[in-house]
């Protein structure tokens, strides 16, 4: 239902999230991000092109990660958002709170 794959790159950590992010598995995503932040990562690029569903609890976890990064002058960067996930990010105006790019390449090039 949910696949998370993280890779440490030169300028950021790339976190690929695929499937459905709901109340039952949102903590997996947040724990993964928290673990990278605890290790000192300040830039998380989250790739969402294969995300089909995100509920309000999933949305809250993105906000929580962004809150954790802010005091470290870090950034949560989203890419590949489309379909229903993009709609709910737009409706809740979360999309204005994070840098958003169409592709991972564009997100990484911005760093």
């Amino acid at each position, binding site marked *: 239902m949910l696949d998370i794959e993280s890779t440490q790159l030169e300028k950021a950590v790339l976190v690929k999230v695929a499937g459905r992010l*709901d*109340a*039952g598995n949102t903590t997996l995503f947040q724990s993964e991000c928290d673990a990278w932040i605890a290790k000192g990562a300040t830039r998380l690029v989250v790739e969402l092109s294969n995300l*089909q*569903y995100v*509920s*309000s*609890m999933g*949305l*809250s976890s993105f*906000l*929580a990660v*962004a*809150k954790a990064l*802010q005091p470290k002058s870090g950034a949560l960067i989203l890419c590949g958002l489309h*379909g*229903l996930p993009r709609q*709910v990010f737009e*409706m*809740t*105006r*979360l999309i204005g*709170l994070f840098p958003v790019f169409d592709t991972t390449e564009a997100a990484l090039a911005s760093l």
Partner: protein
Amino acid sequence: MGTEFVRRTLPAHIDALQECFAFVREGARLSGLSDDDMNRLDLIMEEFFMNVARHAYPAGQSGDIELGYAVPAPGTLQVKISDSGKMFNPLASSPPDFSRGVADRPLGGMGIFLVNEMADSLSYSWLDNRNTISFTYPKSEPSGS
């Protein structure tokens, strides 16, 4: 097709969330709703289901949630969600201030906002010591806001 409700009672616990999705999707399929519509419907169901699972019953005490759907017409689904936990109207909460930045933006409140955007004829009742939410899906007019 009709106004009779098909009902199912599930434990009000996160472990039953996928079963909640599957049950209401049976109605959505009967109604001929698209996959996209079913995902939006899941979002509404998750909000109400988790609200009951997390807050309706005292910690450590198990409780049930009753789900029901009817298909009054093709492309339309009526849904009811009820529980016998403490009286609580989730529709009464006000949406968060979306103009706030990351630091000041509260984590909660987005779900009920999305429900209001996606569901029609949302109502809450407290009757015979039961909370009941009912709504029609999908929303007849796309929201312009």
